[in-house]
């Protein structure tokens, strides 16, 4: 049976790096997806995700409730993602510098090429939600978790998770309400 987050945290604190690796495996997609919702390219989002896990590793001993690891980790992701977004915005404002021999961006960003504009739009809309709603939406649709499973992972009441899902979906429905998707009828 898979070890719980709390068990893996305790093992990592005792020096078991593989245990921390298991935590990374378990949560990396969500952390990565949260970073993408900041409008980052996939390479940048991976950088952010990596930094999130490194910061988490450093601070692991300060986590008073190991069972709340997921919520704590996503909070770190929020901070790190916000930092990166600010840096990007400032660089955009200061982009009058001569771009000489700047390392070229990958000709095709792996994720965005695969995703296409529609998905990029959805990720951007998700970026407008607050952190709590983004996390539950991501866990629901990325990892396919039910509200019960989300609640267990986050250590929060099921009703709270349902409420957030409901409000997030209502917001997204309104946001896409007049936008025709490539595949389906007007939502």
């Amino acid at each position, binding site marked *: 049976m898979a070890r719980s987050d709390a068990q893996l945290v305790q093992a*990592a*604190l005792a*020096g078991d*790096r593989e245990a*921390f*690796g298991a935590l*990374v495996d378990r949560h*990396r*997609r969500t952390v*990565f*997806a949260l970073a*993408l919702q900041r409008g980052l390219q996939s*390479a940048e989002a*991976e*950088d952010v*995700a*990596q*930094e999130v*896990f*490194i910061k988490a*590793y*450093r*601070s*692991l*001993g*300060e986590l*008073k*409730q190991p069972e709340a690891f997921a919520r704590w980790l996503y909070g770190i992701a929020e*901070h790190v993602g*916000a*930092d*990166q977004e*600010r*840096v990007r915005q400032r660089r955009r404002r*200061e982009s009058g*510098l001569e*771009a*000489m021999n700047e*390392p070229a961006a990958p000709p095709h960003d792996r*994720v965005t090429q*695969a*995703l296409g504009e*529609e*998905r990029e739009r*959805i*990720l951007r809309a998700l970026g407008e939600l607050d952190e709590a709603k983004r996390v539950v*939406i991501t866990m629901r*649709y*990325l990892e*396919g978790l*039910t*509200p019960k499973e989300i609640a267990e992972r986050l250590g929060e009441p099921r009703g709270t998770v*349902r409420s957030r899902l*409901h409000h997030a*979906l209502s917001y997204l*429905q309104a946001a*896409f309400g007049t936008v025709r*998707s490539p595949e*389906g009828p007007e*939502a």
Partner: protein
Amino acid sequence: MNALPSDTNGGPPLTCDEARRVIQYLTQDGDLKDVERRLLALHVKTCAACKGELDRRRHLDQRLRKAFTGLDTSPEFTERVLEALPARGEADSPAWLRGESQSAIDALAREAGASSRAKPSPRERMLRAVRIYRVPLGVAALITIGVLGAWLRHGIVGDSTKAPALASIEAGEAKLIRDGHERELPPGYPLKEGDVVEALAGRPLRLALSSAATPIATVHLAPGAKLKAFARQRYELIAGDAYFDVRKDRPREPGENFEVGTRHGRVTVVGTSFGIVLPPDATKDVTVVVDEGTVEAASGGSTTAAPLRVTGGFEADLLAAGGVSAARPIAPGRMAWHRPNANATAIAQSTAPSANDGTAPPGDAGVTGIAAPSPPAIDWTALENQIDFRGRALPAALALLAARHGDAPELLRLAEQAKRLGAGAGPSMLRVQCPMPVERIVRWLAREQGLRLEAGARLRAADPGELPGPPEAGDPSGTAARGLHATLPPAPEAIALAEWLDEYLPANWLAAPGDLPPEAATMPRPAEGSARTLLDEVCRDAGLAWAWYDGLVYVARPERIEALTRVPQAIDGTPWVRLDGHTHAPWRAGLEFFAARVRNDGHGGFALQGPARPLVAEAALQPDSLKLHYLCGRVNRVRFAEALWLLRDGTPLATLDTEPLNEHEGPRLVRTWEELAAEVRETGRALAVPENAKVFPVSAFRNRALRLGGSIEWAARLQGLGVHARDGQLVVETPEACYGAPRLQVLRCDTQAALLPAEAAALPETLAETVRVCHPELFAGVTFHPLKDRLLFEGDRRQLAAAQAVLYALESDLRARAAEVAPAAFDLRAWRPAWRLKLEQELARPLQAGAESLPARSFPWLLRSSGYFSNLGCTVLVDPAAMDRLAQADLPALDVRGKNAGQALRTLAEAAGLRMILEGEVVWLRDKP
């Protein structure tokens, strides 16, 4: 799930509400029970609206699923993360690196607006280890001085053909200068020969250098410093100061050393932490500062001076005239831009007593060579965590600490000293469960035994009554204390105080021996809340007190805490300020502490009780000033430097010393300025009134609620004047002289917005409306400009103070609400300050004597003498000129049937041709315009 009625077998069909709930559960859970699916299908057959809703939700569901399909990191992501984690052996616990804690991360996240850390490329991220490492000690470094030009041309081993280092910015901002062109330094950038990296002004630059997928060094450049690259391990410091953390395990070819050239020579290292101070004046000496390790300094060129051995904690000069100076302890404040505990190096000064005798190491007369490894010098600023000293005597505790730092000789010496001093007052009670610097730990271990840790790493017995020392040394930002703001989970109903402190308090703590009650105590209700609040309650319940002192929570009997924190003056004579009722600190440290708190938390307040008499109700720290809330409600803003100067001298900060004015109630009736002046004289102040000041008509000024200060202000305002302090007395004169000309005023409401995020967007505009409602006359004709988190308007100081009072009242109420267990919804639009609510409550009282009509009498008689309004507890003021006029004739009888006092007052005012205005905390009856 209870979406459906219990009877689901052929039972009544779903209502639309029930159908929508089922649809909601469908999209949330992804599936329905058979019966739910059947009933929903039946419903949507006949309900187009619900069918549409179902279709929209399904479609949204599909779009979201598609958007997330295939979303994943690269396959090697986890491996990359694990590689980037701190290596085993570089920290006692794999979870910790020095200087990094969650509170620090949070603080960095909040300050990220100033952060400009460039992101290295993914490859660089993969290859780079975690940032700053303190290189294991005991490795000697080599410094040789040579002719710069020759070295640059040839180097020690000849021209290097090594690949350039990759440079990645970790903190600060930098530009790259190449061939005369400037640009922003890109992330993970390969430096070519001749590239110059310049640290931009504002904050130090931290640059990581790596090569062949392995870190080489971390370079810290002071703002404005410039570093020129020649090869991956050869640089020239051409301007400013720099500090180098060179990896011992970096990649290198045989004979390839990390070298940094300066105008007077070069520094070649194997692995250590050292800094170079390069004065702008080329005729000045260059100073080498060594924090860790041992270096040999030798002068090349024509001098024949023997090499000098310099150990960690010492510095030496590379002389412009040639040669090397004698080593000396690192000067306090040296390279403080990078070495934040520069003053703590005093502790390390005597760490190598025989190091600086100027003798060359035996058998080595040349300028090259590596000295034998010396015992590691303790890094007093290193953070320790998860170490339990409880039950150990001081010598054993110090030995334990030494063992965790490679048997650091300083700590072992202290252990011996402790034995000689007979330190055996009792075992330690200290358990470090949050990061704490080594120096502070040793200080507390010593303090427990009645000893003092002095500069030079020496212990001595404390003199009776001696001051315990600066409480917040080394932690002016107070980030460690911020753990006390954390919200704690509920604790058991009955738990011993020591156990509660151990298990629930997110901070290090210590108790005075014998002061903690051993038995379980009932926890206060609610048994959850902020750590600070709970600490207050549990200590109070146990008859104890606590103080945040020198990095931990100290719990003891109140008289011990009082003795601990009673520090009227610091040892250097700097006046102290009392912070939070628990901590004392020098003025400057205190202001810096709260400046950091305001920046981080958006709030900071403390009562000024320093040499100056308490003048203000609250002082809120702004990033560059103090915002003072005076006791009369006036608000002023004083720049830091001015505040420090004034406070140190004991000069009252306020231009209006209102404390005594606020203690006195204002007179019930004001007829003449002389009467007011007499009241003011009672407080020890003087009131200067213009010679042509008018007399108040009888009963124009009926005061029920104003203090003396407010009475003076309103008396002045009624006569079109203002009041301010000048030359130590209160002066009544024109508004312009008192409050200045109108100018752009900015009200920041980001604190309030943070407390009410749901209304953040609308808050400035709503606040503007509230200010207008509370002060319609004062802000008549004033245009407010709401921006994202602030409100702008053009006004004088009186208007600013009034608007600020509303703003701070809102903040106060929001904070009180935030502290509640179950805060009710907050209606921002309907919110009013407490004094406004009180005014409205007073006006809602019934009319005295339950009168149904007011007789035909004069206005002054009806207002003051009739008794109809005698139970009104608010102040009612009338324009003096109107009162004069209205005293001449009687008004007709007025019907006030069913009206409360306020409604009846309005009826009376209208009959008198006046308008009734609720202005601030008074009712103001004015002539119509």
